């Protein structure tokens, strides 16, 4: 699926068309409204590509516009991948700028034509990634942090249990590190840090924001994980005791507390101590041998390793794998982001699915239209899955000690689907 009115695609199409034949005054272009075409032609004239004379716009630039169009992505800002063979660089491929940050960050393992390469350097000024051909027994997976903000909402509609919307969003993404995982077993071998500037993607997104009623009903069922944890009355004491016991030292990396108190982490997640009625035995959960002192960095890693999957994250996982089937696209063409307090919907819980392509190519509008069908399908999929508490086929696998979030995800979907099948 390609949206021909994507601004970037449209701009390049218009440039190529103007190169082939001058635009005349009342010419049309596809389904583009006449006034918008005029705006584009004016833009091209102002930036020196067109010459307006009489009632025609003539191409007047020493360029061959088709040459600057990449068939692999909408943006033409390309990085080249240079493999070093005995200090002699050989260009093995190209990658677009947005992908370069997460695919060829320093330390990444990149695979090209069955050869594994280790990325030595990513030169952002010259758009060059330097690789060394190397045999590894591991691959890497980037760790990214994203924030989403609203640019412009195109349409919004109340649906069962929620509000659906689509529009332009701004996604700020930063690759902060990566995991090293062993081939075949996916065993975690360690972490690497990456210092890269954040990247910005303005694209179209479709989002579902749960309404108050839905969240309240989930809370009542004890299946809402979006609220900040209240660790109970004995928490502060237990926390300080744990830090004292661990001599204020991170038990993973050995860093000693300096200007910030270290975190204290539940080895078995706090939420797992919830009984059938939703109550947590804080004495059991906060007992000292379930607590460990960790510095902030190690804590973040531990949190991602032992994940308590919330219903929101579980639903995001399901939609990530379900929606490409409706759109006939690659799973990597879409991004999925969930946020219990999203700026897209006045701090309400949101799942947003966006086009991984600058300016979007039409996925979001389609998802907006397909909302009911997709949610019903998701509910069907998860309730029909034979797993106990999450697996790769439904809401995603739970961690070693974690909870899968299947039940929580089902609860959300039941609130979103009008006629349970």
């Amino acid at each position, binding site marked *: 699926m390609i949206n021909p009115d994507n*601004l*970037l695609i449209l*701009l390049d199409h218009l440039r190529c068309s*103007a*190169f*082939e*034949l*001058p635009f005349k005054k009342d010419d049309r272009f596809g389904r583009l409204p006449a006034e918008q075409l005029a*705006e*584009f032609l004016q*833009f091209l*004239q*102002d*930036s*020196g590509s067109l*010459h*307006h*004379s*009489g009632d*025609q716009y*003539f*191409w*007047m*630039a*020493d*360029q*061959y*516009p*088709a*040459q600057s169009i990449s068939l692999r992505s909408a*943006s033409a*800002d390309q990085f080249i991948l240079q493999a070093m063979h005995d200090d002699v660089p050989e260009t093995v491929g190209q990658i677009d*700028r947005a992908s370069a940050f997460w695919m060829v960050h320093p330390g990444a393992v990149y695979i090209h034509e069955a050869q594994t390469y280790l990325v030595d350097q990513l030169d952002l000024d010259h758009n060059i990634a330097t690789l060394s051909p190397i045999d590894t027994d591991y691959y890497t997976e980037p760790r990214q942090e994203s924030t989403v903000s609203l640019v*412009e909402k195109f349409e919004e509609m109340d649906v069962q249990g929620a509000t659906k919307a689509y529009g332009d969003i701004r996604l700020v993404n930063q690759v902060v590190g990566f995991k090293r995982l062993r081939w075949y077993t996916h065993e975690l071998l360690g972490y690497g840090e990456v210092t890269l500037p954040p990247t*910005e993607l*303005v694209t179209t997104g479709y989002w579902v924001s749960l309404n108050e009623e839905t969240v309240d009903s989930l809370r009542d069922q004890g299946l809402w994980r979006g609220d900040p944890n209240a660790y109970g009355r004995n928490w502060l004491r237990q926390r300080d005791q744990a830090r004292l016991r661990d001599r204020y030292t991170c038990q993973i990396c050995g860093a000693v507390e300096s200007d910030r108190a270290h975190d204290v982490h539940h080895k078995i997640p706090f939420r797992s101590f919830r009984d059938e009625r939703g109550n947590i035995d804080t004495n059991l959960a906060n007992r000292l041998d379930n607590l460990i002192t960790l510095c902030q960095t190690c804590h973040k890693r531990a949190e991602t390793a032992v994940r308590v999957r919330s219903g929101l994250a579980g639903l995001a996982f399901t939609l990530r794998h379900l929606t490409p089937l409706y759109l006939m696209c690659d799973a990597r063409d879409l991004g999925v982001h969930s946020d219990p307090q999203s700026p897209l919907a006045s701090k309400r819980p949101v799942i947003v699915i966006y086009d991984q392509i*600058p*300016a979007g190519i039409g996925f979001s509008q389609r998802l907006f239209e397909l909302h009911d069908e997709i949610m019903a399908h998701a509910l069907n999929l998860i309730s029909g899955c034979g797993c106990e508490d999450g697996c790769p086929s439904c809401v995603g696998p739970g961690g070693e000690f974690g909870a899968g979030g299947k039940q929580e995800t089902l609860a959300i979907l039941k609130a979103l689907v009008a006629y349970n099948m």
Partner: protein
Amino acid sequence: MPSLSDRLKSLGVKVGAQNLPSPQVNRPFSVENVLDGKVIPTHLGEAYAVESLFPNGYAQGSVPIQISHPLHGIADWIQEDRLRETSSTQIAFLDTETTGLSGGTGTYAFLIGVGRFDGDEFHLAQFFMRDPAEETGHLAALEEFLAPCSALVTFNGKAFDVPLLATRYLTHGWRPPFMEHIHIDLLHLARRLWRARLPSRTLPNLEYNILGALRTEQDVPGWMIPQLYFDYLRSGDARPLKSVFYHNAMDVLSLAALLNHTSGILADPLHARLEHAEDVYSIARLHEDGGDLQMAIQLYHQGLEGTLPEDKFVETLQRLGRLYKRQGDFSASIALWEQAAQHNHIDSHVELAKYFEHHLRDYESALTWTQRALKIIAEPGFNLYERRYWQAELERRLSRLLRKLHG
């Protein structure tokens, strides 16, 4: 809603220059006021041309602009018999200045310089497109000027000027007026004639090295020309275009001088009294490739009498040796190959080894030549790729010879 330009910028479009002024009318420095040309009415609108006449004998550098030699040598080279019957007044010399150097449909030939002999004079017309809206008149005027002509002379016109102009005519739905014309592209000939001697065969380089002409400061490098035209369209100020007209006029005049020069060489190469032995070598190769082996042999000998750089000297020996071999004159070949072998020429070693092995069945001598060649390619400075190529060939020969010698 942010403006289109801001939205595109936020998507990472590198927009470059912005808010350029709209095209302006510049009366004091308009084309008509700055250039000494005239408006030509055509049935498809106006055209504009600057015309100049050059008297018979006018020289570009040291070479006069005229057709002083028969064109049969050129006719042989381009394999075009119609050229033998073509009179000098039917030949048009053409060069275009365009809005882009990479070509393609959206590239305009905004200045078309075309010259032809008219009586005693060389008549140069430079058709200038004052505005792209005027292109129909511009092309119609060129068509009228070309009407008496049946041959075109260009420099890289086969790849650039002619297809580009043809596209312009086709875009307007007309048949290009020169599709059946004889076409002499002097770039290809220049490459063959001066590749051995000149590091660059661009027209300004040939002008300087072959014609002995030097352009004045008024000239402008070709890559700047599109931008000068774009600037003119925006500002209406035609003054900077003067240098483009000068550049274009020089190109057309050089074409005429170059045809005169090359047709003279090709008409009778043995008596062309060429100053440089490399040029003799190049013309010999031209005839060898064209199948005129007798002429090639005579020219290679003439080249060997001059001062050739070592690589060309050795190559001449080897080529001459091969020509004699084709004629069955092995004694002449052997002498030449032995001479080349002294310069460590591997191919000649192989030829000698073949000769001793297959004709004289003197395996000892064949072995000696093969071993000598293997020694040469093993030397440290020898080119890696050539070594790889010869190694396999020579070792195969060596083992076969050893088998024949020792059973």
